[in-house]
C-alpha cells in the first residue's frame, strides 16, 4: 500500500488515524513547501492549538539530545503521546546534513513517541523555516507535548523563543564566566534554565552566575516583562538525574503562563512571526534572483561597479533598495 499518488487530504486522514508513515510523508510536504503543503497547512490549522510546545536549546555538546531523550522517556512513562523535532544544521556548501539526534532518543522513548529529524535547509536562527508548520501538523494529529530540540546554538539563535510555549536553555560547566551570562541574547529569553552535567566541577558556579544574572534582571526591571523569574534546575542527562524536576518546572511554567494570559499572547505572536518569516524568505529569494541578474535590468552594472571598487557596498545597497518594490 503505497502513499504515492494519494491526495494529501487522504494522507491526512491516515495520519489522524495514527499511521506514522502518513504523518512522515505530510511532514515532507511541509518541509519541501511542496504543492500539497498548502492543503496540509489548512487541514492542520483547523485542528491545532492544543499541544504544549517545549523548546530545548543550548550550545553544541551541552546535552540537549540526551536531555530530550530523558524527557521523552518520562513522558512515555506518564502515558503521554509525545513528539520530538530534532533540528540539525544543513551544510551551507552542499545543502547536505548529518542528522544524528534520533539515536540518542529512540532507545528510551516509548513506542508512541514520534521523532522527526530536520535540517535547517539554509535558515538561520537555530530552526528550519518549516518548524512551525510541522509543529502544527504534530499538534493536529494528537501529539502533546511537542519537544523541539534546536541546533547547537551560540548567543543569537533565538528563533526557538518565538516558537515554543516554554523555552529551556541548557547550560553546562566551563562555558565562561558571569560576564558571558550577562551579555544580551539567548539567555534573556529563557523560561527555564537547566544546568546539565551537574556532576562535573563548576556546575554550582554556573548556577550562581545564572542566579546573579537573574538578580540583575530584577534590579534593572527587565523581569517586569515576564513577571516570572526563570527557575534553575540541575541535571545529569546521562543518568537521568534531575529530569523529573525539569519536567515539573516545565509544567509549572505552562500553568503560570496559562493563568496570566501569556500563553495566548505568545501564540498570537508566533502566528504573526510565521507570516513575517514566510514573507522574509520570499523576499530573500527575490533578492537572490535580483543579484543573480535574473529579474531587474541594470543590477549587473551596479555589482560590477562594486567589484571595481568605484561604488561602495553601502551605496550599492541604497541604490538597489530603492528598486525592491519592483521585485
Amino acid at each position, binding site marked *: 500500500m503505497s502513499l504515492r499518488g494519494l491526495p494529501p487530504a487522504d494522507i491526512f486522514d491516515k495520519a489522524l488515524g495514527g499511521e506514522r508513515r502518513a504523518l512522515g510523508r505530510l511532514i515532507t510536504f511541509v518541509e519541501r513547501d511542496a504543492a500539497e503543503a498548502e492543503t496540509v497547512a489548512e487541514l492542520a490549522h483547523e485542528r491545532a492549538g492544543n499541544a504544549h510546545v517545549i523548546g530545548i536549546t543550548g550550545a553544541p555538546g551541552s546535552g540537549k539530545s540526551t536531555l530530550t531523550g530523558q524527557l521523552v522517556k518520562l513522558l512515555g512513562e506518564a502515558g503521554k503521546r509525545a513528539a520530538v523535532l530534532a533540528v540539525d544544521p544543513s551544510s551551507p556548501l552542499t*545543502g547536505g546534513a548529518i*542528522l544524528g539526534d534520533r539515536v540518542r532518543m529512540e532507545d528510551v522513548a516509548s513506542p508512541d513517541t514520534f521523532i522527526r529529524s530536520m535540517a535547517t535547509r539554509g535558515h538561520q536562527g537555530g530552526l528550519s523555516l518549516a518548524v512551525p508548520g510541522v509543529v502544527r501538523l504534530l499538534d493536529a494529529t494528537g501529539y502533546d507535548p511537542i519537544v523541539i530540540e534546536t541546533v547547537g546554538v551560540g548567543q543569537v539563535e533565538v528563533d526557538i523563543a518565538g516558537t515554543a510555549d516554554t523555552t529551556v536553555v541548557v547550560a553546562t560547566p566551563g562555558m565562561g564566566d558571569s560576564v558571558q551570562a550577562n551579555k544580551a541574547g539567548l539567555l534573556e529569553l529563557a523560561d527555564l534554565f537547566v544546568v546539565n552535567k551537574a556532576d562535573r566541577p563548576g556546575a554550582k558556579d554556573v548556577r550562581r552566575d545564572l542566579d546573579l544574572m537573574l538578580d540583575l534582571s530584577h534590579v534593572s526591571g527587565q523581569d517586569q516583562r515576564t513577571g516570572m523569574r526563570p527557575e534553575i534546575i540541575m541535571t545529569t542527562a546521562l543518568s537521568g538525574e534531575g529530569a523529573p524536576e525539569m519536567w515539573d518546572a516545565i509544567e509549572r511554567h505552562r500553568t503560570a503562563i496559562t493563568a496570566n494570559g501569556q500563553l495566548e499572547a505568545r501564540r498570537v505572536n508566533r502566528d504573526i512571526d510565521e507570516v513575517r518569516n514566510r514573507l522574509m524568505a520570499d523576499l530573500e529569494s527575490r533578492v537572490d534572483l535580483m543579484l543573480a541578474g535574473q529579474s531587474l535590468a541594470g543590477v549587473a552594472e551596479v555589482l560590477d561597479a562594486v567589484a571595481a571598487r568605484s561604488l561602495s557596498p553601502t551605496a550599492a545597497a541604497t541604490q538597489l533598495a530603492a528598486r525592491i518594490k519592483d521585485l
Partner: protein
Amino acid sequence: MSDASTSDPQIRVVLAKLGFDGHDRGIKIVARILRDAGMEVIFLGLRQSYKNVVNAVEQEDADAVGLSMHNASHMTLAPKMVDALAEAGLEVPVIVGGIVPDEDIDPLMKTGVAAILGPGASAEEVAQTVRDAVAAVRGSSPQA
C-alpha cells in the same frame, strides 16, 4: 541555497548497522560522503534492530536505507531488512555497503537488495548509487 536541493527534492537516507557489528569507520565515511553530495543523512549508527530502521524510515520519510555490514551477516540480515520494510508497506531501496564476497553478490541482489557497494567504491560511485536507487523508486510512479 544549494543547487542540488532546489532542483530535486532533497534525498533523505537512513544509515544503520544491524545487530552485533562494531566496525563503524565505514558508515561514518559514507555518512560524510552523502552529506557532501547534498543529501540528508539520518544517522542511526551501531547495534540497530529492524524495528528501529522501520521506525526511522516511517517517521523520517526516508528515500533509502544504507546498511553497513562487516561481520558476514549480510546474507541473513539484509534480506530480513528488505522484508521488514516491505511488510511495513515502505517502498524504499536497501543498499548494502561493506564486505560482501563475490559469490554472495548475485544471491543477495536476488533477495531484493537494490545495490551493493564494496571497499574501494569512490565517493562519486557511492553518491550516484544512492541517487540511482532513489530515482528508480521515485520514477516508478509519480512522486506523491
